[in-house]
Structure formats: C-alpha cells, structure tokens
C-alpha cells in the first residue's frame, strides 16, 4: 500500500504497524515522534497502531535550531 511519509509517497506492506515502519526506516533507536493524518500516535502504541493506505505520516525529531 502507499503511505506518504514526511511528504514522500512510499510503498509499504499492507497492515504494517507504526513500530514495524520505524524499524523498516532504520529509525528504531532514535528519539522521535509520529503523527498520522495530523494526529499524534503515542510511542507506547506504535506496536498496535496499524497503518492504512494513504495515511499521511510525519516523523519528527529535535534538532539544533532557532528562528528558521
């Protein structure tokens, strides 16, 4: 199925969980937060949250930054 991840469409297996997605993207040991369709998915629910076709996913982290 197609998922939009950080603005880019990607093909992922049907029924993949948020946790499996993070694993697949190689982000497993990074401190991050995830939104699906503009709603935050708590890290504690990553295993049980199953992604659906067309889901818009934002994965963010803290970086050095000021005004911009």
């Amino acid at each position, binding site marked *: 199925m197609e998922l939009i991840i950080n603005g880019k469409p990607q093909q992922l297996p049907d029924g993949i969980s948020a946790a499996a997605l993070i694993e697949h*993207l190689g982000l497993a040991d990074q401190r991050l937060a*995830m939104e699906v369709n503009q709603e935050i998915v708590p890290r504690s629910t990553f295993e049980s949250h199953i992604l659906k076709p067309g889901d818009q996913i934002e994965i*963010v982290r*803290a970086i050095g930054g*000021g005004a911009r």
Partner: protein
Amino acid sequence: MSSVMKTATPRTADPLLIDGVEYQSRLLVGTGKYKDLEETRRAVEASGAEIVTVAIRRTNIGQNADEPSLLDVLPPDRYTYLPNTAGCYTAEDAVRTCRLARELLDGHKLVKLEVLGDEKTLFPDIVQTLSAAETLIADGFRVMVYTNDDPIIAKRFEEMGCVAVMPLAAPIGSGLGIRNPYNILTIVENAEVPILVDAGVGCASDAAIAMELGCDGVLMNTAIAGAKDPVLMASAMKKAIEAGRESWLAGRIPKKRFASASSPLDGIFF
C-alpha cells in the same frame, strides 16, 4: 527535577526560577546556526547554559544511523531541552509542533512559543501567539512566550498563564541590542513572572544591559553562533549575564547632571 544536579555549576544563592524549577544560569541558548555539532557542544558548554532551545523537524529518513545527533552532544539528562515553534506562522502549526515536542520528550511540558508574522523582520504575530498560548495553556503546557516589547501585551500573556514572558530586544539575528529599554523596564516592573529578553542581542554588553534593566535572564542564539569565535563569545556572554545581574542587585548610583567629588575637602594642603 530540581533535586537532580544537572550540571557541575555550583549552586548560586540567586537562582533563576521558572515554573517552580531553579536554574543556576540566567543565560539560555539556542542550538542553531553553528558550523557543526562539535562547535555547538563547545559553545553551549562555554556559555554555562542549562536550558537549550531546539527545533522540531522531520527526521532525515535514510540518514546514516551512525551520524551523531544533537542529543548525543547535548545529552537531555544534562540539559533542559526547551522545544520551540521556530518557523511557525500560525497558531495551528505552533500548537501542533508543541504537541509533537511533548511526545518526543516524554511528556515534557515546558515550551517556547513563537509565532512569526513576517519573514523579513521575524516579528511575532501577536494575534496568532495569543491564540496559540490559550490553546497550549489549556492543554497543560507551561509556556514561555516570545513577544514584542509592548507592556500591555506582555501583561496579557502573564495573566493568561504563561510561565515566562520573553520580549525581543530587536529582530531575531539582527544583533541590534535592546532597541527600547524603557519598554523592557516597564515590562519588568509590572511582571510577576520571569521576564527574559529573547532575540536581537549582538554582543556581551547588550546582555549585561538586559540584566541591568532587571530582566531575569536572556535567551540568544545568533549572537553566539554567528560570532567569529562562538566559543569565546559564549564565555563572554556568560560573564556579561553574571556581571549585569550583580550590577542590578548591587543598586547603581543615580545619574546626576553635575559632579560629586569622591575625596574630602578637609585636609587640603594647597
């Protein structure tokens, strides 16, 4: 959290108190615009800052997993991370950013709210900022709000429940120093929450002046990161904040139009 000694800084008798937590340093620093992470680390360390602001941005997918991140050079158990809403021009984006930051930092509630109105001046959009502050406060966030130097608005933010109010000295990154010291003074005099000057500081004396107006602290990024020698400037800023604070606490002499001699007339032999 206040029982954990986060840094090696000796405890001062004059701590900065924000939302019930004591900090030894009155200098807060941003983490952007450095040459690289190593320079970031050295400058932040030289500054003595305990609170560092960070931006929330998309993860770089496909990035080398071994590449160090900000959290590696500024460990979250040693520094208080203050997520900001940098780059947000609407209340909606700012609220969304804060919620993601809270999730990212395990429920951490202290945030810096900034909602910009204009790309050229980066002045805050007060209407959007008021709206975002209201939503965030209702959602349990402890908001340190970036604002302009309007004393009425500053008090409004305090009354709605912001834990600190942060008026700008001058536009972000401009290095112009405090453009309107009388407004900052009025804000400080009317405030019951900490007032920190945020944005526009350019050199160490600017920071000292902020403290001598009675501000509780100063937040800066470009003044350090953009200096020719950021680590040295960070050290200068640390001293300027301390000197300015002592100067204010010490109670300066009044300004007088004419001289008042320091030595007695008694005993003059000429």
